[in-house]
């Protein structure tokens, strides 16, 4: 369940919500599950995967101020969230989360800036990192650096769109920093479209960079011979975890067709280039998958609202 909150309007411009709300982290966060509200088939995955937690159980306060033609809304949130990750990825826990988001709307221009802090615990890899701890100081250092137990996570995002009606452009840049194996990531997207009656052809570009995506791991030369095998195995496992930190770019071309009242149909072609040694944003990697390759993806969706 994504939304379950009660809203109380203190004045027409000041409101407070309690319960489960969407975190206003990304430019399209509020409606990333409602395809009808944007042109693309899906929000660009490079940016929208940066933060694994997208909702919050707690409070959020919103205040709107209109000055001349400018409508400015500032929103602050505080709370906690436990999220079951897809693909049997376990449970992510975000504790002591707080964030501030400011949205400015001036005529056809909308801009948003967000900072979100949370204390993040990702699914248990504790037993894996405890194995490193058996290898003395160098193993402990690796475990402390990469484990994801109660690690501060800082997220920053800035985005804008200009939509005078017949056409639109939008761009977004985001940064996430976590003192765990997920490391530091930056991601961006930029796109635009032109509305020709019921058809909206569009172009969309996106990219993500993350580090680290590899680590030398344990120095095996100093180990007794019976520990070299296990150490090499642990190093390989650590590197396969780090290789899931995405480095990729995607070029997309597509068209949205508003074919009936409250319905749209979208076709999109994505050309995805993975960075060297990275599995990009792909999950559930199967044996034989080529790190650093290219992928072509064709998508067709129908959205409706009522």
């Amino acid at each position, binding site marked *: 369940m994504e*939304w379950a909150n009660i809203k109380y309007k203190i004045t027409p411009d000041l409101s407070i919500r309690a319960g489960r*709300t*969407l975190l206003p982290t990304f430019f399209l966060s*509020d409606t990333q599950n409602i395809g009808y*509200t944007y042109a693309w088939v899906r929000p660009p995955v490079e940016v929208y995967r940066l933060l694994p937690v997208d909702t919050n159980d707690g409070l959020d306060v919103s205040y*709107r101020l209109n000055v001349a033609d400018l409508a400015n809304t500032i929103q602050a949130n505080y709370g906690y969230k436990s999220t079951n990750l897809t693909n049997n990825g376990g449970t992510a826990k975000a504790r002591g989360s707080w964030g501030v988001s400011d949205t400015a709307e001036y005529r*056809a221009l909308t801009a948003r800036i967000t900072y979100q802090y949370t204390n993040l615990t990702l699914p248990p890899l504790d037993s894996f990192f405890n194995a490193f701890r058996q290898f003395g100081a160098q193993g402990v250092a690796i475990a402390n650096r990469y484990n994801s137990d109660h690690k501060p996570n800082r997220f920053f995002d800035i985005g804008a769109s200009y939509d005078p*009606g017949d056409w639109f452009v939008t761009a977004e840049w985001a940064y996430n920093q976590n003192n765990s194996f997920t490391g530091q990531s930056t991601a961006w997207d930029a796109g635009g479209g032109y509305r020709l009656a019921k058809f909206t052809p569009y172009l969309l570009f996106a990219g993500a960079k993350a580090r680290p995506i590899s680590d030398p791991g344990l120095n095996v030369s100093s180990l007794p011979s019976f520990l070299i095998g296990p150490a090499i195995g642990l190093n390989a496992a650590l590197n396969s975890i780090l290789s899931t930190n995405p480095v990729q770019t995607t070029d997309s071309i597509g068209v949205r067709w508003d074919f009936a009242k409250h319905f749209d149909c979208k076709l999109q072609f994505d050309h995805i280039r993975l960075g060297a040694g990275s599995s990009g944003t792909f999950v559930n990697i199967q044996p034989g998958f080529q790190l650093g390759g290219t992928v072509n993806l064709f998508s067709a969706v129908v959205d409706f609202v009522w």
Partner: protein
Amino acid sequence: MVTQDIIARIARMRVLAIGLALLLASHAAIADVVAVVSAKSGITTLTKTQMADIFLGKASRFPDGTQAVPVDQVEDAPARAEFYLKLAGRSAPQMKAYWAKIIFTGRGQPPQEVRSSAELKKRIAQDPAAIGYIDESLLDDSVRVVR
């Protein structure tokens, strides 16, 4: 030869310009949707942006600080499509997408709807805070045009 060609071109452009002017004139005659408030309201003028902010739920007050309550015609009303195209440059599907965004995130609700122009005039006339839109040909003393 070249002069003749230029004259021919100018003539074609004139025909085009006259055609365009006729097209615009007929367009204006078919549907001129105007924003209206109660005859009891103190509001006489609003800029396009001020009006758009009220109808798009971005402002809850008129510039003079009094409460503003926008009123919509039903989704299929031609006046509604015309009004939002002129006001915000957005087609009916674009407006639907706009409100879906706001409703689903609990940030607001679209204006209340009335079933007909007659009902709209009745609704507007009795409430100084209300603002709506109707076809210019349906104006009467109960409401006043806001330009």
